[in-house]
């Protein structure tokens, strides 16, 4: 399986994602934002970080960079595109997934482990994951998901919510919502479910020595689903 990780000026989880993808068998290429062409890929990842310093609005400038036109075309033709953290913010800015990401409710950066409940498994990202609840890691300042009531209805009708913040037993309640996201939304798909944007970083959960191992489940499953 071939993957591509896009490096924008200010990306800082690009290497971590490269390490994770390779660990689970992807042949990964790093792609520079100013390139026009995407290499042939089965998966494109927009990594975390602070593209363009988060200036103007998180993800907004990166969404206009040269490579993004190819990424958008790739996504529109059914290609798998995953945006993590800042990558999610970029996806939102391109309109590939609906909604916006506001500043965290308490106006503070949060770095910690969280639990997320998988809401939908009829997609290549979460199909065949045995667990209902995964322990993931977040590190962001603007992860407070928001959208209009109409959008929310559409998202829910199409089952586009990928994961919700919850407790270790999968209970989705306000007290387990780290950043004020609408409906505890931690990740969301496009209608066709080939594009996934999520705040948590599975690439930081690939080793017992790190924050945990549930990221491994995610990546192992992802590469199997793509085969």
């Amino acid at each position: 399986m071939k993957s591509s990780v896009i490096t924008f000026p200010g990306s800082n989880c690009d290497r971590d994602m490269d390490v994770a993808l390779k660990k689970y068998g992807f042949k990964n290429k790093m792609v520079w934002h100013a390139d026009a062409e995407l290499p042939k890929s089965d998966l494109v990842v927009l990594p975390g970080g602070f593209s363009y310093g988060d200036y103007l609005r998180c993800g907004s400038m990166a969404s206009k960079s040269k490579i993004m036109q190819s990424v958008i075309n790739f996504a529109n033709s059914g290609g798998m595109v995953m945006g993590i953290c800042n990558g999610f913010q970029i996806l939102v800015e391109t309109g590939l997934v609906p909604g916006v990401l506001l500043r965290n409710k308490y106006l503070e950066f949060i770095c910690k482990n969280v639990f997320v409940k998988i809401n939908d498994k009829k997609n290549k990202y979460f199909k065949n994951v045995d667990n209902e609840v995964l322990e993931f890691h977040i590190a962001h300042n603007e992860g407070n998901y928001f959208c209009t009531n109409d959008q929310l209805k559409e998202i829910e009708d199409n089952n586009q919510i990928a994961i919700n913040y919850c407790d270790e037993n999968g209970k989705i309640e306000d007290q387990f919502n780290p950043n004020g996201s609408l409906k505890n939304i931690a990740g969301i798909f496009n209608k066709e479910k080939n594009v996934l944007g999520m705040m948590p970083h599975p690439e930081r959960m690939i080793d017992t020595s790190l924050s945990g191992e549930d990221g491994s489940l995610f990546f192992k499953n992802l590469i199997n689903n793509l085969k």
Partner: protein
Amino acid sequence: MIVNEQVAVDHGLKRDEYAKICELLKRTPNITELGIFSAMWNEHCSYKSSRLHLKKLPTKGKKVIQGPGENAGVIDIEDNDAIVFKIESHNHPSFIEPYQGAATGVGGIMRDVFTMGARPIANLNSIHFGSPQNKKTKNLLRGVVHGIGGYGNCMGVPTIAGQTTFDSSYNGNILVNAMTLGLVKKDKIFYSKAAGLNKPVIYVGSKTGRDGIHGASMASASFDEKIEEKKPTVQVGDPFTEKLLLEACLELMAGDSIIAIQDMGAAGLTSSSIEMASKGNLGIEINLNKVPCRETKMTPYEIMLSESQERMLIVLENGKEEQAKKIFDKWNLDFAVIGKTTKSKKIELYFDEEKVADIPVNTLVENSPMYDRKWKKTKLPKKNKIKKEDLKHLKIIDVLKKILANPNVCSKEWIWQQYDHTVMGDTIQKPGGDSGVVRVHGTDKAVAASVDSSAIYCWAHPLTGGKQVVCESFRNLISVGAKPIAITNCLNFGSPENEENMGEFVECVQGIGEASEYLKFPVVSGNVSFYNQTKEEGIKPTPAIGGVGLIKNYQNMITMDFKEVDNLVLVIGKTEGHIDQSLFARNILDEKNGPPPEVNLFNEKNNGETLLKLIDNNLIKSAHDVSLGGIITAVSKMCIKGKKGINIKKPKYLINEIEYLFAEDQGRYIVEINKKDFKKVTEILNKNAVHFDELGTITENKLYINDKTKVTIDELSTSNKSWLINYMSK
């Protein structure tokens, strides 16, 4: 502008210093030259009050590749890998403008590290605030934490450990010390020594603006009512540009075109160019019209003294300019050839085709003033006799809860959750432990780092305090299973012109020197911050020590959380019952006098090295050093982290229970071992003549003392965790 004595005094120079400048130049300096002298000769850049004493610190060792004098120190961690590290203060700016002050402190220290070719892999910080009741404290704390996070998070470098304290002596002068570790290949270290004639001098990074002019002079003065007016002297940080600068520099460094490189930190273009020329025994000629400027009509004076951030000066091999420019273009950074190296041994500046400065380099560096300031020795205070009646009415569990909730002991999770501590995917010990630990990417090795200070002990007796901080750093590294290698120090003191403050400095440095010599834990880099005082009142002496150690196989790292019920808990090191200057004495008995706990370097070394032996033999399940709040505080933290309880049985000592549990004697650790290993462990301890106590057994979820008094760990955890959150949300 005509330069005279008064203008010089307004620049922070002393009258005799101005006379010396005129004598060295054999003429009156012009305003640009005076600005350059004032920047180079202030305390921050010249170390004029501290140099004499810093010379006495041990700086050499088998593992030391580079000691003080470069942008940062470098140590050998084997297999051609080296760690570059340093700590630096940004106290004055952070008090005036906490967010930008702290942010640029973090940015500056990271630049010092990647200037040497190393990729930063971990940040730490030591931050100190006034009393929680002081009306400024909350906003300063919030601003500093946001600033540190804002910069470090954006750079994508994990902040893995730190220290936060509160004390009323910082009411008017907070301390913000930032430390960075970087990883480099031993044969790819870059230095600031220029070499060769007619080599192009290159300016890269951000454009120069009027921000931060005279920042270094500001950092060398005391505060008064008018400090708000100094806001424009605080630099403004742009971590995004620094991230680009980091990547661009590392890309250029992969080739072989750089002769010397120096970041523009304090005193900007002035100190960077002079340092490179001075080390290379060369001259440098600069055309200031070529310097990329952000604002119009900047004068030579402003260009030379600006402290705009995220800039570097490079001496390049001839003919490599185009190739280098391509890299900086790719990263959207300015790149300008602004001058060349010369044989004149002078700094010669041109602007609008006129020579605007002409100063021999040695007058700025070797001939800079050095003072042997008067200082006063601190006598060892007399020990207090603790009255048994004072202890009688105390309930241990109540005291324990109070201590766990003390601002200087409580959990700092509210702070470190705002720092990205997991980016780069190698953080294997997060903040909240004895040391932060990161793996050396792609290897089995890991590097541990911790930052410590004990202002109370240093204030009570500077010589003992100085030793103690080094020992504490040593212990924090050993507690995670790391072999201590070297330290960096950030020496925060009041005014060197005050004999008492100067005495505190001299004796703390002596203590640091003695301990680091004995423990073979040399000082490889550091920074001095004087004038941490408002009007006549100085801070408590606060030397911060950043220690770095190596874990050869990261799988053998130790954490402090209790692991398993029924395991045994031992105290390594002897408890004499030293209560003076302990958290217990100061906060529970309200006794603020007396000597700090004595430091016995033999025991420190012997106890620490023996514990490392036990760890190497896989006999230790968890470990934690005993510091503030004594044995019971240390044990409680291990219980809270491991969600386990303990049944403590006080050994049959002569001292009473309270003294045993709350004393702050040095050189002690709490360790958890498996019952079946008891014989092996005690054999090793006895063989090495290490005193130990059997403290108790791990239980489910309650803390007992002699089977009786009990409290749930949840209750202790709440005491420990809620103070800071409540304080910040009020």
